[in-house]
């Protein structure tokens, strides 16, 4: 399995603008791997993104992984970028890979689970569908260790 890092710069952008960019990048990635259930994934992405504003404002979203079979795209949220830096959300490499995943996954990685719960992360895991899984992963602030939570929101 390979992981490709991407980055979205949050600090100097309006949250709505960030989420529009993110939404488009996620949809594009599903299209580029010819995911069969495109309507399903687009609807899920829109629902997921709707829950993101408080998480983004509170800066508790560390990254979002898109699991496309053997390929994972990891989008890092950079809250304090260089003001002149640009986003890196170019998904065109997916065109070069012959991926045709039967299932998709989105891993939402948090850097502060307590604060994320306070601002409403609990609504997200219930988004999983038959072909797409949404998993919330809390990262320990001190150790950096990850603890996975199942897609029904239980630890």
């Amino acid at each position: 399995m390979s992981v490709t890092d991407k980055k979205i710069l949050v600090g100097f952008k309006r949250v709505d603008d960030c989420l529009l960019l993110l939404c488009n990048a996620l949809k594009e990635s599903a299209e580029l791997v010819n995911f069969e259930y495109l309507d399903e994934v687009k609807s899920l992405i829109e629902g997921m993104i709707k829950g993101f504003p408080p998480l983004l404002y509170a800066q508790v979203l560390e990254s979002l992984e898109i699991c496309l079979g053997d390929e994972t795209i990891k989008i890092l949220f950079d809250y304090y970028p260089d003001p002149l830096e640009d986003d890196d959300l170019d998904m065109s490499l997916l065109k070069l890979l012959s991926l045709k995943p039967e299932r998709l996954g989105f891993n939402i990685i948090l850097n502060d689970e307590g604060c994320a719960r306070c601002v409403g992360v609990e609504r997200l895991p219930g988004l999983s569908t038959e072909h797409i899984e949404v998993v919330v992963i809390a990262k320990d602030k001190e150790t950096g260790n990850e603890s996975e939570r199942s897609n029904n929101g239980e630890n």
Partner: protein
Amino acid sequence: MAKIRGIGVGANVMEKSVTYVCNTVIQLFFRILHKRGLDAGFLSSSLEVLENGLRTWLGEQKLKEMHLEVSLPHSSDALEDWKAIFEYYAEPDENVRKPPVEEVERICQELRALPAGAIYRIVAVTEPDASDVPGWIASSLKPLRDATERPFSGWGYGHVGAKFFYHGGFLDGLHNQQKDY
């Protein structure tokens, strides 16, 4: 003869300054609500109104202060007040200064717990000629009794900076930094 062309890197510095300070003020408020055990539901559902106010008044350079005021329902006094005071610079500061999130969270941990049922509201103090923004109504701050003050490091970028303060009576053991009223 060669032409020399350039692009002003400061062209959208004001926009970035406003956005950065707006985002970080809201970040601080969310972090405080979490650490003080207050329900973030009201703030989450008011983000559009809050952001519109912050962006409008910071852009006009008419926003003086933004408060997260905590009180008990029906009480005429506040329990505590978290205050951002804004500064505007004609010459932009190109250094990105981070908000004092860790400092604020550390103090929140040291404060005595709020009484059950405490609520909060967001109060903006603007210049008299600031634009009206939908969702914001005329109000006044509640007085604080026996409050002490704790200042935090300032932050900002470009044309806008901010300083942050805690005022309240829940500060035990911080006598070297507090000021009695």
